[in-house]
């Protein structure tokens, strides 16, 4: 069961068997800009970036993005920056993996964001999507189709947060604008 979300839709999710999440992956995929003519390098590359911001009591403590690929504690890992996108066939071109059991005890929320580093709005990018996957069973928890999402260059996608002894995910899907996660910090605050 995958929830296909439109922008701004926020819902709480639990695993279908009632347990809590232990490992999640945020995936981001998009179709690379088409090569044009002989001068292949001149096509306008599209670089979308996935980031995860770790909060403790609403204070940002650590960030995992293309310049800092592993959180200091090792619980959040980025697979590495993809600068051009992929085939646009639904595969993840960038992914951030979170081992929730390893997250330090003071971190209580992790916010996932997507932004367009090269500045194209989501309207201009083909087959762009981001999704959250429960890594323990490979089940897709939430998916956003970014393409056609309007004149925005960024999205606060979702957050996972502590709930009792475990974790839960809330889809946020708030569109916004910015080149890197720093630009998105003000937009994140209302969702904490």
């Amino acid at each position: 069961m995958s929830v296909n979300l439109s922008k701004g839709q926020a819902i709480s999710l639990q695993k279908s068997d009632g347990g809590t999440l232990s490992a999640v992956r945020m995936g981001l995929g998009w179709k690379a800009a088409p090569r044009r003519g002989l001068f292949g390098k001149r096509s306008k590359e599209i670089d979308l970036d996935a980031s995860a911001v770790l909060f403790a009591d609403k204070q940002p403590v650590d960030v995992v993005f293309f310049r800092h690929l592993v959180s200091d504690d090792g619980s959040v890992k980025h697979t590495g920056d993809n600068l051009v996108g992929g085939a646009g066939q639904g595969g993840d071109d960038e992914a951030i993996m979170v081992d929730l059991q390893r997250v330090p005890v003071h971190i209580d929320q992790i916010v996932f964001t997507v932004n367009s580093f090269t500045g194209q709005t989501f309207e201009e990018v083909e087959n762009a999507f981001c999704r959250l996957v429960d890594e323990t069973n490979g089940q897709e928890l939430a998916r956003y189709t970014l393409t056609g999402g309007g004149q925005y260059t960024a999205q606060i996608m979702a957050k996972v947060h502590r709930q009792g002894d475990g974790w839960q995910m809330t889809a946020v899907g708030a569109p916004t604008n910015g080149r890197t996660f720093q630009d998105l910090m003000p937009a994140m605050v209302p969702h904490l």
Partner: protein
Amino acid sequence: MAVELVRGQNHPLPGARLEIRVSAAGPVVAGATLNDENGRMREPAWIAHPAQPTLPGLEVSRQAAADHRLAVDLDALPAGVHRVNVLLALPVGVGGPLNFGAVAAPFVAVTGLDGTEVASYRATGLGAESAVVALELYRRHDSWKVRAVGQGYAGGLAAMLADQGLPAAEELATTITDAVAAGMVRSVAAPPPRTEEDRARREATVGGAQGAAGAGAATGPGNSGTDASASASGDFAPQAHGQPGAQASPAPGGSAAGGGRIDYQHPGRASAPSPAPPPGEDGAYEPVAGDASGWSMDERLYNQIWDMFEDFARSVAAYRSAVDFAESRMEQELEKVLGDPRTRLGQAADTARTEAREKHAQLVERARGVLDRDLAQLKAESDVVEPALPPAFARWDNPVWHGYSSPMETPMAVRLGDLSLPEGVGLRIPMLVRLPLERGLWIDCGHQGSGASALVDADELRHMAAETATAIAARLAAVYPVDDFTLNVIDPAGSAAEALAPLLETGALPEQPAAGAAGVSATLERLTQRVDLVQMAVRSGATDALPPDLDTAEQLLVVHDFPHGFDDRAVNQLRYLADEGPSVGVNLLMVADREDARSYGPVLSPLWRALLRITPVPDDHLADPWVGHHWTYEPPLVPRRSRVLTQVLQQVVQARRTYGGG
């Protein structure tokens, strides 16, 4: 994931119906014998071999093949069977290799019916043997376990069968050989390889459908842990470990395969995730030595140690950041209470203060709990890894040094000491550096360091530094093959004579250390010339033009008493060696106090920077490449009154006499 067994190691089996997969470089004969609780073959018929392939609960192949699948149903075995020995032998009289030393080590895996590997073992280290007991499955109380045996027999099948307690071993061996030879002829004649048909039949026997992934799992000897490119960029700051791109990339594929589970318990181990805990158990993690990717056991252990190092660093980072956060939050909350004049005094303020402190204590306690869990796991892992280490990675007190013999190959790394953190409660990570050394070493016998050096007087510290130098020099001499390593020592004033004694007495250092100013300049002159020559030859691509008497071995220059006996020219040569030497196999091991050389001023700063600083006493000055903790370094000293160093050096000298070509 499969557990890769080392010789002698055992592992529980999940069920009674199993398959044993054998893959070897060429055709081998596979068989099995059954033992009772006393380890004897109760009946002569308790053996499955190509001439008699079927026993209740057990079936082997009729012929020699590179790949075998033995079907086993432990519940169906004859009553009284407590052990199943899995035997491999090279076929005789068919023109193949005569002993296992001539072929790649055979690989044996125990899998479930669905093809998931439970445990595997590579029977390495075989030489003249042509038959080997690879594994045994044995009953322990009410459950079965598998153990890697790896017992080889130079006398071949007959000797092995005789050792199994078979009366007519000789005749049986002949029967088997004949059956195999006949089978070989048959299989050559049949155009389609029989293995496919054979497999299909076997699958029917065990009643299990093999998944496509399972069928691919046992093809070829290289399948054990070669799936991931080794992250062995090995200097003291391995970049590969910092770039999860290479290691985590299998993840999307994993999920695409439909619910493939990926385990994040160990960052950097995506290629060898720990097994999903079997249902019904509490998921207790059982560490195994060599549980990492790599082409050889040494490389796997090396990678595992780096993984442990990283896990340790990150667990402590998580703990420290949680504690820092708890403290800053408490301070903020207390400040808020005190900053507001209305709440500063009275009941409310007290309550607020107590609350803030409690919140702090709770968070710290939780963080500590998580850290303790991680440390316990790492400690358990360290307990199995340390005994499995080869000499180059092992502490001097490891028994592996007692079985030391001069190696044939340069190891990939050498242990320079131990690293620990104050939170680690006794957990020590081997500090491994790649060989050949990429930079020289500086054993700092000065007092400016922190830690234990302040508690030791200057002379004692110098003595310990000299001992450390000897321990490291001896270790390098021992782990390099004969003729690949030459030790040079400068001891201008003879102050390190006591520490050098083991090297001189055993003859590991054949000449007296260079003494006096003359000795210093002669030694430096010689090594500088060598660096010059080799550099010139390499740059001009004329390495074959080097003089034939040039010592091509790695050179280690141990310098005591610096800068005693050094003139300006010698100091310049030393700096030159520190900068240019490592790339052409000349390394420094300086025992020095920076203060002694103060008069040279900043001209020596590049020298100290070029060397890796270590200390003769525990000192926290080394940083890890991930989060930059200050790790306490402990030198690799020989235990007091231990004779291991002398014994090892005697072996080295003996090997030089026997094999050394000069």
